[in-house]
């Protein structure tokens, strides 16, 4: 029997605000433990939470960017559970009135535009970090050590509907969400630093079934690679269990990167077990029309808009997707150079290939201040007009990245202009033919490949200034080939 997998993804995005969600302790990234704490974020009695306006602005921005409906009158709830990294014994979160609801995110899947429906976007706070002494594994630890620097850092949780069909689609979704959070400038978007953390809810059901199977939550995937592998593993585990007639239990499973498998952590709490109730310390949060309009006005260009603009220049979806994820100066450079050259393909290749490759070799993150779209356009133009070779173009670019000098100066100094005067080239060709009687005879006897050798001779005699294509054409003509 063929089974269909269904996946929903919950992603936590750590916002890049200056201070925490409900207190004004600085958000710090450091190995030094417990240096940015106050009574609120370590849950001392009597401390009162006061929400960070910037974080609310950011979550509204993300909600609008994903086309969500904004809850005008929202509120915060307490999600109750006992764990040492949660000093208040509850996490301030949102329950039935999240900031954003019912949106969608455009993604690129298998070279095509697709989309993933978003169920909700809500605001919450992060927990502290625990280290388990002993073997490092929770189940054999002798004590737990706590660092609360991260406690109270603003987190946005964004939950998809159960609509994702494969591990590949899940990865495409996270890639897009990551890019969106960077473009909106609400998060660093670094997976390796835990700025984005994701859990997957996975179930399998018969193809023709209208109901979803029992869902299993997978945690501890900290890279796109582990997300993909964990989902693939879990789909095959559940498929096998289903086909063997075993019951699939609703539970939380832990992805073990080293063993490449998921293992049971605990039976899953239902939402009733968290005993959500409205936080008496935090009154209703009213988001005014003006607040929302102001944010909407300042929405930057979204990844899908950037892609579509780049595709309007002639780029393919994949190229537009790659370029769209680049730093803004690279996208601007592309647009400016394209405006001048109207050559989408070579402009794309020069910028994503040559320019960035040479910058890596020179170990620089930005081109020097004298570098401009005009210079690159000039190089591309000269190649198109056959005035310089592609190789010479690379040489010129390399020089320009290191010295404030014009294209013409480098080309003249290094004798890079190609000879386009046909009469002169014909002279060179004739000389080579006269000097290479043997070779010419062999070509006439059928050794076509040797034409290449003669082309090489023409270029050599010209000091490298003849375009190989023109040299070959004229040689063939002279030899009646």
């Amino acid at each position, binding site marked *: 029997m063929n089974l269909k997998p269904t996946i929903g993804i919950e992603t936590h995005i750590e916002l890049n*605000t*200056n*201070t925490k969600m409900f*207190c*004004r*302790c*600085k958000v710090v990234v450091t190995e*030094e*433990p*417990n*240096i*940015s*704490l*106050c*009574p609120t974020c*370590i849950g001392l009695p009597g401390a009162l939470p*006061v*929400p*960070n*306006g*910037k*974080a*609310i602005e950011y979550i509204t921005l993300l909600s609008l960017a994903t086309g969500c409906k904004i*809850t*005008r*009158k*929202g*509120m915060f709830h307490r999600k*109750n*559970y*006992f*764990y*040492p990294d949660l000093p208040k*014994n509850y996490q301030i979160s949102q329950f*039935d*009135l999240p900031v954003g609801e019912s949106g969608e995110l455009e993604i690129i899947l298998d070279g095509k535009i697709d989309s993933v429906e978003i169920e909700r976007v809500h605001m919450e706070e992060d927990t502290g970090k*625990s*280290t*388990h002494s*002993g073997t490092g594994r*929770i*189940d054999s*630890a*002798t*004590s*737990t*050590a*706590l*660092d*609360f620097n991260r406690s109270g850092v603003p987190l946005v949780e964004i939950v998809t509907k159960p609509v994702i069909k494969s591990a590949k689609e899940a990865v495409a979704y996270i890639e897009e969400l990551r890019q969106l959070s960077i473009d909106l400038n609400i998060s660093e978007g670094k997976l390796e630093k835990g700025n984005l953390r994701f859990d997957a809810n996975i179930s399998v059901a018969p193809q023709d079934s209208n109901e979803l199977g029992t869902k299993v939550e997978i945690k501890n995937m900290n890279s796109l690679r582990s997300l993909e592998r964990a989902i693939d593993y879990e789909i095959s585990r559940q498929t096998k269990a289903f086909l063997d007639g075993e019951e699939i239990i609703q539970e939380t499973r832990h992805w073990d990167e080293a063993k490449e498998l998921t293992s049971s*952590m605990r039976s899953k709490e239902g939402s009733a*077990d968290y*005993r959500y109730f*409205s936080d*008496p310390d*935090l*009154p*209703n*949060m*009213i988001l005014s029309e003006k607040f929302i309009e102001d944010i909407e006005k300042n929405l930057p260009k979204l990844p899908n808009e950037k892609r579509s603009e780049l595709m309007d220049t002639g780029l393919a979806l994949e190229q537009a997707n790659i370029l769209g994820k680049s730093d803004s100066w690279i996208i601007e450079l592309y647009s400016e150079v394209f405006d001048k050259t109207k050559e989408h393909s070579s402009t794309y290749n020069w910028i994503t290939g040559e320019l960035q490759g040479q910058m890596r070799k020179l170990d620089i993150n930005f081109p020097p201040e004298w570098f401009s779209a005009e210079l690159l356009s000039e190089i591309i133009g000269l190649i198109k007009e056959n005035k310089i070779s592609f190789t010479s173009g690379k040489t010129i670019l390399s020089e320009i990245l290191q010295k404030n000098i014009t294209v013409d100066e480098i080309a003249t100094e290094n004798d890079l202009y190609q000879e386009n005067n046909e009469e002169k080239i014909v002279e060179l060709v004739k000389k080579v033919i006269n000097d290479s009687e043997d070779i010419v005879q062999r070509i006439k006897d059928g050794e076509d490949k040797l034409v290449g050798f003669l082309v090489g001779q023409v270029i050599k005699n010209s000091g490298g200034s003849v375009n190989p294509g023109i040299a070959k054409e004229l040689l063939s003509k002279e030899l009646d080939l």
Partner: protein
Amino acid sequence: MSDFDIKSIAKLASIKLSEDEQEKLTNDLSIILEHVQALSSLELDTNIEDVFIHPLEKELKLVEDIENESLTHDEALSNAPESKDGRFVVPPSME
């Protein structure tokens, strides 16, 4: 009517209950639930956003994202029964 398990509720609240307490609380909670049940007979035709569920009839104030002085590291740890290498130490936590 007691369609709840007092033991699991006690576990979630992290409290220990004796047999007697379990029985007493099961009775009390059943009565409370029955009272609350009466609400479900009300016909409510209200948008959830319009229901002022919060006990405080006050609007939440958002503050600027500007850092304030925090506790010093030593102050933060001063009430901890146990600490090591600058971290709070607690008994091993098991899921």
